[in-house]
């Protein structure tokens, strides 16, 4: 490359910057590794939150328009199914469905299962539902039939068996038969699920015949959901009326930097970058000043020295940023978020797979750049200028 070309000049300065970095390779390697680690940590958290929000947005977009729960002393209790008749008379309501659901705690393993019971005829409204099974079928009209999620056979230690028993509240046993198993692809929804018929769920939880857990209300016009919800709340003041919009809003805000883990990640990362920037802003050692004096005597201009310092910082920051960001993607895509999974699962005995495909968002990338690379480069600016204006005769 001709020595006089602009590109050649820049490449030569980059070469010299790299040689300069290699001279203190231990320290600079440590900075790159730490920088990569902090970018990895914050990117992983950001990408995981984005992936979960996107999953919730797409999957729960068809959540029930309105769910009616009965509250007593602020707690959810069973409600009288006769309420369904009153709700059906509200204009705009297309259909009201009964549902019994709850939790079954297995004392042997310590696992919590979600049990949902719906009338078998309700399942016929969704022909695509059976495609979520990897084997078998949905529970039909025969008592004791159940479809289970992927974690349930492990939790119940079924092995190859399809029959097992559950305890009713009076400790009598109810026999169940696994007739279907949900696929791993639906594990984000069904991993801990036992799907029963409404009658079997009522039998398992020993609920009175006149009660159900909640009512699912279908509204003909989506624009009228809030209006219908308000009418239900007015007619039945002791109920909690949960709309689809409320569910969507919950999942928009439940993942974010204000969570405990998010705050810890953010504070750690900001602290790390503050240390990096402080280190950069410390200025020049005597050896560095001498080196710059020699370069100036050899004909380097002030602008060249400033470029050299920026290239040194830029190579470190950009290499670490790109590496950290890509490792964060690999962490989610190939590692299923192994770093955060223990925190997300907590003491759960059932350990559903974390299916979270990261979504690229330019705004998130720019935010990350703004809190990592830019402060590091900005901290270089003043020392770079100070280096550039050194007079050779003052240091040699």
């Amino acid at each position, binding site marked *: 490359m001709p020595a006089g070309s602009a590109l050649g000049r820049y490449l030569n300065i980059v070469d010299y910057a790299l040689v300069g970095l290699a001279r203190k390779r231990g320290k600079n390697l440590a900075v790159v590794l730490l920088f990569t680690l902090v970018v990895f940590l914050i990117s992983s958290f950001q990408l995981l939150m984005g992936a979960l929000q996107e999953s919730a947005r797409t999957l729960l977009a068809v959540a029930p328009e309105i769910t009616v729960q009965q509250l007593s002393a602020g707690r959810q209790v069973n409600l009288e199914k006769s309420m369904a008749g009153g709700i059906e008379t509200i204009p705009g309501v297309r259909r009201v469905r009964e549902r019994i659901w709850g939790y079954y705690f297995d004392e042997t393993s310590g696992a919590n299962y979600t049990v949902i019971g*719906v009338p078998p005829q309700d399942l016929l409204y969704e022909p695509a539902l059976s495609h979520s099974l990897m084997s078998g079928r949905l529970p039909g009209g025969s008592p004791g039939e159940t479809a289970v999620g992927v974690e349930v056979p492990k939790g119940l230690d079924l092995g190859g068996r399809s029959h097992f028993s559950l305890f009713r509240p009076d400790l009598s046993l109810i026999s169940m038969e696994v007739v279907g198993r949900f696929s791993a692809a639906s594990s984000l929804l069904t991993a801990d699920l036992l799907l029963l018929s409404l009658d079997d769920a009522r039998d398992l939880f020993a609920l009175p015949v006149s009660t159900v857990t909640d009512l699912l209300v279908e509204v003909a016009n989506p624009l009228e959901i809030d209006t219908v919800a308000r009418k239900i709340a007015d007619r039945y003041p002791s109920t909690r009326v949960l709309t689809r919009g409320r569910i969507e809003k919950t999942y928009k805000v439940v993942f974010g930097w204000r969570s405990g883990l998010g705050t810890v990640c953010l504070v750690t990362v900001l602290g790390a970058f503050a240390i990096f920037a402080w280190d950069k802003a410390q200025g020049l050692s005597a050896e560095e000043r001498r080196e710059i004096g020699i370069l100036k005597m050899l004909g380097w201009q002030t602008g060249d020295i400033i470029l050299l310092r920026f290239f040194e910082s830029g190579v470190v920051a950009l290499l670490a940023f*790109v590496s950290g960001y890509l490792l964060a993607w690999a962490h989610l895509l190939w590692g299923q978020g192994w770093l955060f999974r223990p925190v997300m699962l907590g003491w759960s005995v059932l350990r559903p797979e974390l299916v979270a495909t990261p979504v690229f968002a330019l705004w998130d990338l720019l935010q990350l750049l703004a809190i990592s690379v830019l402060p590091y480069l900005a901290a270089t600016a003043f020392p770079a200028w100070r280096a550039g204006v050194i007079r050779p005769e003052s240091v040699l």
Partner: protein
Amino acid sequence: MVNSTANSFRPIYLLGGLMALLVILATSLLWSARQAAGRQADELASNQALVRGLGLSDLCLATEARYIRHLAASDRVVVSMDHPGGIDHFPSSTFFIRVP
């Protein structure tokens, strides 16, 4: 200026090699992400049928407590389910922001 023509190996080649490795990694990740997104798109219809048919309101992320398993459907006092004034003591709740 440094005259690097006498030495055929330039440090920038090493940087270029590193960047090339990162580009290969990025390409692999992009390909994997597209595959995963394609699989999820194929499964979306059946998963949405599950949500509609069973009236699901929450994702199954953790099962250690009711209000973590069902973030949207749990009542507000369930965090104190063990006794009045009981504090939230489950590790996984550090992952989520409680919605009022």
